[in-house]
């Protein structure tokens, strides 16, 4: 398969950190000319970060990038990547919505300039669309904003494969089929095989393992920012792939919860939440009092929307939430923190009902409440009157926990609250959740970290907005959850 002595692209020792989070740790990646490389891994494994480094949109902290025999050092950028024939189709669509398909092609390909560029762009993109997606139904003069999400994705893919003055070396496709229907997805994968046969290289990222297994020559598995496995596609099966994604790496498993006693809650305690996701059908979400219920599945498959639906529960006809709720945001900056306020005020805002006397907040009570929660939950600050932004991210998150737990809410909704929180803080919060649940509070916990499901009494797995599986505490193994997240035919 190797047509030349040098690989199309090779990356060695790529490392990238965002604050305390290690997104990539010494990743090596080699793509041969005419090779289609499949890349799989769970959410946050580092796939997208790695692709951004290859595309030049993110600079790695360390590592070497070679294109052919050329070492590309500092100053590597999307423009340089383009010159070397590296093209990228990212998950977030990047076409300008107010321009036509042809005009977007002009923006991507700087060579389309001078008199008559528009006619050239129209001809090029039209031909490429016809080649990849026969019968696509997109006119080059269509404004992007008027196209459906699937057609936008098709236009963007065609744009990336269009050749002007520089040859095509490597195309990166990050979840290209997630917004395409089955037949167009098939068209794309077929085209990809013929393109690869001509000597172009490709990297394909997909959560649909069947696609990866069928289309790639070789598969690299990522976990926790590392490339943990790399083998020819023929040596993988769906099951070994799932196993490689889920079980390789650290074993930070939770202590087994007192299973028998807790699972009896389902039988003995009344139902406090009954809801069906608005975003899709599938099973019904049932939560009993005092349970910790996990919402699992790939990121963005309807879990957060489910939580918001429960938050608005009282006002919706088809959703029953029979006790007061509080919400703990995972995205602290946009959903949680009031940046101008002190720690105390950030905590007390959930507890107006208990702090009001004669229409006014009792400031002494407010401070006492914040103080007691600082001690209880271990918020590291000398003075709760300090600004909330003086705290580290993990401690800000603790303040948000304190806000919800100090309130009168009996049900706590958690939107992946451990994002970017250090291990020590996590352990403290897990214990707190357990203790509060023992005391009769109910938790609905969306998490992207499979390890955390061990703390849940029951887990619902989401896919495409629907609940596709409900698993008891003992059944919620990584394999079961991953299998349900990825496959249509999973146990329900």
């Amino acid at each position, binding site marked *: 398969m190797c047509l030349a002595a040098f690989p199309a692209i090779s990356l060695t020792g790529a490392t990238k950190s965002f604050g305390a989070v290690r997104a990539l740790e010494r990743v090596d990646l080699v793509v041969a000319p005419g090779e289609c490389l499949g890349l799989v891994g769970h959410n946050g494994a580092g796939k997208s970060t790695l692709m951004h480094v290859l595309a030049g949109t993110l600079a790695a902290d360390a590592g070497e990038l070679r294109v052919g025999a050329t070492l590309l050092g500092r100053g590597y950028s999307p423009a340089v990547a383009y010159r070397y024939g590296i093209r990228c189709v990212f998950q977030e669509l990047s076409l300008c919505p107010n321009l036509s398909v042809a005009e977007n092609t002009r923006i991507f390909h700087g060579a389309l300039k001078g008199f008559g560029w528009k006619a050239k762009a129209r001809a090029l993109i039209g031909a490429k669309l016809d080649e990849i997606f026969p019968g696509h139904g997109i006119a080059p003069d269509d404004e992007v904003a008027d196209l459906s999400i699937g057609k936008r994705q098709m236009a963007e893919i065609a744009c990336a494969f269009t050749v002007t003055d520089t040859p095509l070396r490597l195309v990166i496709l990050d979840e290209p089929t997630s917004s395409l229907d089955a037949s167009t997805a098939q068209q794309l994968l077929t085209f990809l095989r013929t393109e690869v046969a001509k000597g172009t290289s490709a990297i394909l990222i997909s959560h649909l393992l069947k696609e990866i297994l069928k289309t790639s020559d070789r598969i690299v598995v990522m976990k926790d920012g590392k490339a943990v496995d790399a083998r020819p596609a023929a040596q993988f099966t769906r099951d070994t792939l799932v196993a490689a994604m889920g079980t390789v790496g650290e074993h930070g498993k939770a202590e087994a919860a007192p299973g028998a006693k807790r699972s009896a809650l389902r039988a003995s305690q009344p139902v406090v939440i009954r809801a069906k996701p608005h975003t899709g059908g599938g099973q019904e979400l049932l939560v009993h009092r005092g349970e910790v219920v996990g919402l699992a599945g790939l990121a963005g498959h309807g879990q957060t929307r489910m939580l918001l639906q429960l*938050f608005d529960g009282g006002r919706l006809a088809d959703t029953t939430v029979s006790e007061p709720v*509080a*919400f703990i*945001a995972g995205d602290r900056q*946009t*959903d*949680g*923190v*009031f*940046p*101008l*306020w002190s720690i105390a*005020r950030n905590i007390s*805002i*959930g507890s*107006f009902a208990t702090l*009001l006397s004669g*229409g*006014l*907040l009792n*400031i002494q009570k407010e401070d006492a409440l914040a103080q007691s929660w600082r001690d209880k939950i271990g918020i590291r600050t000398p003075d709760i009157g300090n600004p909330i932004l003086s705290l580290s991210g993990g401690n800000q998150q603790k303040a948000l926990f304190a*806000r919800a737990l100090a*309130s009168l*809410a009996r049900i706590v909704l958690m939107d992946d609250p451990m994002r970017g929180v250090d291990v020590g803080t996590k352990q403290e919060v897990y214990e707190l959740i357990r203790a509060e649940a023992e005391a009769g509070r109910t938790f609905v916990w969306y998490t992207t970290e499979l390890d955390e499901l061990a703390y849940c009494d029951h887990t619902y797995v989401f896919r495409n907005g629907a609940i596709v599986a409900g698993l008891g505490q003992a059944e919620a193994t990584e394999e079961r959850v991953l299998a349900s997240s990825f496959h249509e035919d999973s146990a329900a």
Partner: protein
Amino acid sequence: MMPEQMIRWARWARSEPWIWSWLATLGVWLATIAFTQGRGSGEVLTAALVFATFTVIVGLGQMMVVTLGPGNVDLSIPGTIALAGCAAMKLTDSENPLLLVGILAALGIGVAVGMFNYGLIRLLRIPPIIATLSTSFIVQSAAIAYGRGIRIKPAPMLADFATARILGVPVLAMVVALGSIVIGIALARSRFGRSVLAIGQNMRAARLAGIAVDRTRFATYVLSAVLASICGVVLSGFSGGAALDMGDEYLLASIAVVVIGGTSVAGGKANVPGIWGAALFMYLLVTMLNTFGASPGIRLIMTGVIIIGVILVAGGEEQ
């Protein structure tokens, strides 16, 4: 001063942004009485208190609206002042016994305008700046149609109240000062005030923290319009009747006192003492330029330049 003291002072000034408008007020007043060699210094202050009071009434409402966060502003204040003033004068018809009817009608107009404003903003999703400006046109037109050619004197009781003084201090200023204290306490310690501040910092987080976002925003727009209608009534009482253009100058003045007074235009941070300082400053600034004998053109230019200067000094410290 020792450097350490200066740092401490600078830190304090940063946390109390109203100080700048008061310093500016003091500076302008001193410049004025230095020019007149002390003559009329007391009279200038009394006059400033009277005229600042009207600005403060609408400024407090505008402050609450601006505190709701970026994009929130009430431009319907001038129209509301005019319509509420006209309606109160016409219904009262210079008779003391009818005063209550006039005042209730004016307050009703305020509530209606506020509801209409928020209806446009919430139900029709029109940005506040456009919604309230449109409302102002409608309300102003109503005032013109309703109050055509009127020049009805206020009821004597209202006129007396609006012009009364105790020991040289206008009674109206005292009442409005009390009202300001109430609003200050409400901001710091009531559910409504905390809700306004929280929404101004992060509306999404406020909703998820369980705050009644819609109800709070609605109440705030109604409050601003009601304060404007009160201003219309007392302004008519003070100046011997309503005039259709009497609200015009309060459009910019209400916003200027909010900004100069240290309320954050980005929302989430209100400042009541700053409203007073800024309103006094705005009046004294014009007085000073008059005393210096500046022509109207120069006066306007200087007013603009000095306001920009104060905002630069006060805002620069905050960065």
